[in-house]
């Protein structure tokens, strides 16, 4: 196995790229995809630490599976909200979502 720091760096880089995507993109669908990227980066961390403790420990991998389930739930609800919003306002751009402002 590689040293665990390599995996941490990869995970960190993916996390930062995802965070940049969340705060800079206007398209809400791409923002949701960036959130998926962040969750994926966390999964790399979990699996790397799970491997660090040897082949017989798979607790970190089980956590990663839970995070995948969470990501699926989040994507389903988020895309449902996006479709509902698009039906009302004909846009998916974050800076045009001002229904609560008056």
């Amino acid at each position, binding site marked *: 196995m590689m040293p665990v720091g*390599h995996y941490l760096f990869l995970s960190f880089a993916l996390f930062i790229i995802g965070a940049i995507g969340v705060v800079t993109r206007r398209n809400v*669908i791409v923002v949701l995809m960036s959130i998926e*990227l962040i969750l994926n980066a966390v999964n790399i961390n979990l699996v790397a630490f*799970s491997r660090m403790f040897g082949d017989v420990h798979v607790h970190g991998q*089980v956590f990663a599976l839970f995070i995948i389930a*969470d990501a699926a739930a989040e994507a*389903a609800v988020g895309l*449902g909200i996006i*479709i509902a919003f698009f039906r009302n306002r004909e846009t998916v751009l974050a800076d045009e979502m001002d229904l609560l402002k008056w």
Partner: protein
Amino acid sequence: MLDSIIFYFFAGVAILSAALMVTRRNAIHSAVFLITTLLATAGIFLQLRAEFLFIAQIILYVGGIMVLFVFVIMLVRLDVPLHHITFRFQKWVALFVAVALACEVSVMFWYVRQLPSAGLLTPPAPADKLPPNSEQFAKVLFGDYLLPFEIASILLLVAMIGAVVMAKKRT
């Protein structure tokens, strides 16, 4: 040595396509690059000997979640005109890929015909070489983490109902 080559390859692909995903203007390009990132992450999982997560990542993320994303991207209006989405040589690239795939499939059929019928499947690796990942995974998941597993299933049910309610047309 091989381990590190595999790691650096998949890590490079993951980071590069993640950066491309954030910077592309077109949402469908972002989706495709995110799929590439997720597949590279699946490769990292395999390199970490998490075979079950490797398969789960490909089937759940790439096969499930990203298909959902692509459907929603196609449902909502794209701001860019069509000739920005399709590129110029798309027809020729499509033709090349189709011919390559056809060659591959025919070579595969030819190769399978050459084999004796008993030798189609390679013998599985000896069972004592690697720890059985899926078995351990199942033992931990349905033993130590049974309650979180049930809670996760309830979460998925709630999310499913929520998504249906959200996307439903108001009558």
